[in-house]
C-alpha cells in the first residue's frame, strides 16, 4: 500500500512505464558482452539456483556477506554498472526487509541478552544480541537472494531464460504460456495506456474515489474483453505459421531446444 496524492491511474501508468523501461534496459544489458553473459544459460541457471539454495540453508551472516560481495564482483565482471545494480537491487525488497527487520532488534520481539539500551521520552528500549543477529541474517539473506536473482535476469536475455526452463522438464504448456505471456504483457500495457488516454481525452480527470474505483473495474473488464477478442487473431497467426499443438522454441543460434 502506498500513500500518495494525485491521479491513481497516472501512478499505475508511471509504474507500468517504469516496468517497461527496466525490462527493456535489462534486455539491453543482457545482450552486451561480459563474464556471466557468455556462459551457457542452463549452467548459469543451475549455478545461481545452487547459490540461492546455499543462501537459503546457511546460518552464517559472514557466508551471506561473502556471497553478496561475490555477486557484486560477478556483476562488475559482467560489465554491469555497480550504481545501476545497487539501485536495482536495493530499492523496495531489501529496503522493505530492512524496515521489517528493525522491530526484531528490540527485546519486545526478540527477548534475550541485552546488547544496547537507550531511552526515548522515559521509555527504555533494549536491543538484544538475539534480535541483532536475527535482523542481520534476515536482511542479508533477502539482499543476497534478490541480488543473485536480478543478476540472472540482467545477464540472460529474457526469452532465452524462459525457453531454458523447457530443458529442466517444465511442462510444455507452462513454457509456451510463459513465452507468449511475456510478449502480451507489453501489448496489454499498451492497451491500458491507450484506454487511459482515451478516457482523459473524452471525460477529463476523474474526481471522486468512487468514480475512480468504477473506472478501475471498467478498465480491467475492458482489458479482459479485448484480450478475449485477441485470442482468435493470435490463433489464426499461429496456424498460419504452422502451429500443430506442438511448440518448438529456438535458441539464439536458431536450433530447436
Amino acid at each position, binding site marked *: 500500500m502506498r500513500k500518495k496524492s494525485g491521479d491513481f491511474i497516472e501512478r499505475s501508468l508511471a509504474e507500468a512505464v517504469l516496468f517497461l523501461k527496466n525490462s527493456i534496459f535489462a534486455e539491453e544489458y543482457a545482450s552486451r558482452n561480459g563474464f556471466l553473459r557468455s556462459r551457457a544459460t542452463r549452467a548459469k541457471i543451475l549455478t545461481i539456483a545452487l547459490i540461492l539454495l546455499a543462501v537459503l540453508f546457511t546460518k552464517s551472516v559472514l557466508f551471506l556477506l561473502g556471497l553478496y560481495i561475490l555477486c557484486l564482483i560477478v556483476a562488475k565482471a559482467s560489465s554491469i554498472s555497480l550504481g545501476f545494480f545497487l539501485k536495482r537491487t536495493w530499492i523496495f525488497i531489501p529496503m522493505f526487509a530492512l524496515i521489517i527487520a528493525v522491530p526484531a532488534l528490540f527485546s519486545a520481539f526478540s527477548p534475550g541478552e541485552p546488547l544496547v539500551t537507550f531511552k526515548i521520552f522515559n521509555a527504555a528500549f533494549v536491543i538484544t544480541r538475539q534480535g541483532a543477529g536475527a535482523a542481520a541474517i534476515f536482511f542479508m539473506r533477502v539482499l543476497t537472494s534478490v541480488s543473485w536473482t536480478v543478476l540472472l535476469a540482467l545477464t540472460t536475455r529474457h526469452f532465452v531464460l524462459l525457453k531454458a526452463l523447457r530443458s529442466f522438464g517444465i511442462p510444455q504448456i507452462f513454457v509456451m504460456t510463459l513465452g507468449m*505471456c511475456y510478449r502480451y504483457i507489453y501489448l496489454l500495457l499498451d492497451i491500458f495506456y491507450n484506454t487511459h488516454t482515451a478516457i482523459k481525452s473524452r471525460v477529463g480527470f476523474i474526481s471522486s474515489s468512487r468514480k475512480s474505483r468504477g473506472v478501475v473495474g471498467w478498465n480491467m473488464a475492458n482489458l*479482459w474483453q479485448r484480450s478475449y477478442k485477441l485470442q*482468435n487473431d493470435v490463433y489464426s497467426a499461429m496456424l498460419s505459421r504452422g502451429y500443430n499443438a506442438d511448440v518448438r522454441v529456438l535458441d539464439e543460434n536458431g536450433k530447436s531446444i
Partner: protein
Amino acid sequence: MHIPDGYLGPATSGVLYVVMIPVWIAASNIVKKTLKAAQVPLLAIGAAFSFIIMMFNVPIPGGTTGHAVGAALAAIILGPWAACIAVTVALVIQALLFGDGGITAIGANCFNMAFIMPFTAYFIYKLISGKSAPESNIRIIAAAIAGYVSLNIAALFTAVEFGLQPLLHHTAGGQALYCPYGLNVALIAMMSEHLLIFGWIEALVTGLAVKYLQKHKEIPIS
C-alpha cells in the same frame, strides 16, 4: 503478498514446492484436455492479464491505494485450473525477470495465490451464484464475496507460513533465522491489512469486472 527469498526457511519452501508439483501437473493435464486449440493463446493472455491487474493501483478511502491480485477474477473467467496456470505464469515471470517474489518462494507464492486463492474464489462464486441467471446481480455479489474471502484466506496461509518460521528455524540462543516474527505478530499484521483494506479492493475489482462482463454478453464467464 508476494513472499521474497529469505523470508521462509527450507522446510516451508520445500514442502510448498512439493505440494505444488502435483497441482501443476494436474492443472497442466486438465487444461490440455479441456482447453480447445483455439483457446491456447487465451491462457497466455490470461496470464498477462493477471500480471497487469497486479500493476493497477486502486484508490481506497484515506488517500491510499492498493492493488488486487486478480486470481479470483481469473478463476471466475477461466475456471480454477486454467487460472492456476495463468497466475503461476504471472508469478514466475515476476520472480525470474523482476525479482518480485523469490525463486525459492515460488512454491509458496503459487500455493497461496495460484492455488488456494483461485480455487477458494471459484467455489465460493459457484456456491453463491448457484443456478442464477448470467445477468443476475447475485453473480456480481458472489464475485465480490469470492474476491474478498479468497484473498483473505490466501493472506491467512501466508501469515501462517511467516509465523511458523521462528518456531521451525532458530539457533540454540533463540535467534530467528528467517522471518523473525511469530504467529501472534504475523497473523495480526497480515490479516488486519487484508481484512480492512486489500480484501475490499479485490472484492470491488472482481465485482465490478463481472458487472461489466455481464453487460457485454459476447464474453462468457464461468
